[in-house]
């Protein structure tokens, strides 16, 4: 958000540095200026080349922490699309719903059956009541239980952002085992199948 302040900060920074540099850069008097100016200009070019080779390739797409992994939503949606069978359903978490929507539209694919989770919505989403699948769920586990009970033993895919701690154990309680767990950067795809006992 404060990227607008960057040019202003840079101007103030180099205004402060200019006084230091001016000791070395004397425009009129010496050959000293030439050598120093040349060095600075070469430094600028080298920095930009190195920047092109290194930093710009770093593909983290988050705001303030460059260590965040990339979200490969396109890869994840494509993977679900390619591997989902006719009777399968996909449960999309709140934080992944817009991405899933964009890429299913972009891939011209309509998932046969979609559940939209009540949980993990970001600060600024709106109009949730008409969209989420189980509005009365009091916890993610309860929501999961309700979905499983309505699935009649069909396969459930989960499309979410980040890990869901204890998910495998919860699903095991409902008689489902994880058969696929695949990360696409920060996006995680699970496939759960009903175990016939």
């Amino acid at each position, binding site marked *: 958000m404060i990227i607008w302040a960057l040019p202003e900060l840079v101007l103030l920074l180099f205004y402060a540095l200019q006084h230091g540099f001016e000791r070395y850069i004397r425009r009129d008097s010496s050959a000293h200026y030439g050598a120093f100016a040349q060095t600075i200009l070469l430094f600028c070019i080298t920095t930009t080349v190195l920047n092109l080779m290194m930093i710009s390739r770093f593909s983290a797409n988050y705001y303030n922490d460059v260590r965040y992994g990339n*979200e490969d939503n396109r890869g994840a949606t494509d993977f679900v699309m390619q591997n989902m069978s006719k009777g399968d359903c996909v449960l999309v978490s709140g934080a992944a719903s817009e991405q899933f929507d964009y890429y299913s539209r972009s891939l011209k694919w309509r998932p046969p059956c979609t559940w939209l989770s009540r949980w993990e919505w970001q600060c600024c989403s709106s109009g949730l009541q008409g969209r989420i699948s189980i509005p009365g769920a009091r916890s993610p586990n309860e929501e999961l239980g309700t979905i499983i009970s309505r699935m009649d033993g069909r396969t459930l895919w989960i499309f979410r952002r980040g890990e869901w701690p204890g998910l495998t154990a919860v699903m095991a309680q409902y008689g489902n085992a994880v058969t696929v767990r695949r990360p696409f950067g920060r996006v995680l795809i699970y496939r759960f199948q009903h175990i016939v006992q």
Partner: protein
Amino acid sequence: MVSCAGERAQQTRPGLRFKNRIFKNLNLYAFTIVFLLSVPTRWMLISKSIWLDEAWVANSVLEPSWRQMFFYPRWAQTTPPLVLSLMRGAVHLFGSGEIALRLVPLIAGTAAVLVFGVAAKKMFSAPIACLATTFLATNYWAIKYSQQAKQYATDLLLATSFIYIIQELHHRRNRRTIWLLVLASGVGSFLSLTSAFWCATSILAIAWNDMRTRAWSSSIIKECLRVRSLVTATIFGTCLAVSYLLFFRPNVTPGFSRFWSAYTLGSGRRAFLTALHTFVMLLVPPVHRLAYPAGLLLLTLVGVGAFKVMSGTRKNDSLSTLLLLVAVMPIMSAVLLSLAKLVPLGNSKG
């Protein structure tokens, strides 16, 4: 002794002139290379998969009607209307893929480097201006925001455009530049919410410019009340009010308000530290354990620069006054608006 020095100067003058010409060209080459390299730097990851915050902007741009785009029903629409319109135009021309959606930020981010370079060259000596431009061109966030379907690259372009126009006004003082400033005020209000920070600066820039032409015989307050300043203030104020009341305010949800106000300077004791932390990370991203101390050092130098600007302005130093207008004033405006809980500064969104 004196004549000897004079002779030497006469002998070296043609040589110096030649050298200066070479350096002048070298400066131009360096600027051109820095700018040209900043294009692929921004273009490189443009077709990468979009992420959450881009996805809802993309979905809103792809909505069937303009109304649904401006008042997206599934997310608090904080993207300025002109950015949305331009993105919709790009999608209309080039399809709904990632590249089309990111075209506007890419152009804005790249143009920002160019505009900043031209402005900096008129303020500092060529090597310093080139260093400053390189710093902006290679800044991690300036690159990343040029690759994301968000409004931040246009925020950057708006800031650099105001810097350029105001320094032009400072150097040329012609009517065309004033009209350019008025145009930037009007268009900028719909292009970026941060244009509000430039309102006071623009009015003061015109007033200060008028005051200089009258050989400092007038006071700045009197000049602010003259026609040109008042026209600028009215146009800027009206456009900002229309943009805010028509597009921004109807989109504000309670969740968004809570999120937004938590990062304003008026939200509590820690807010100032959070803001400082964000400014440090803006200068140097946290890629290494030494990055944070380096960012702190640079921010300290920024503080030294601001102090020098203040003291230079008192002495009627021209560059200091210009920097007061284009660098200190917008930040001060943002701080005041943030203290009034209107603008987040210590935002998690670098």
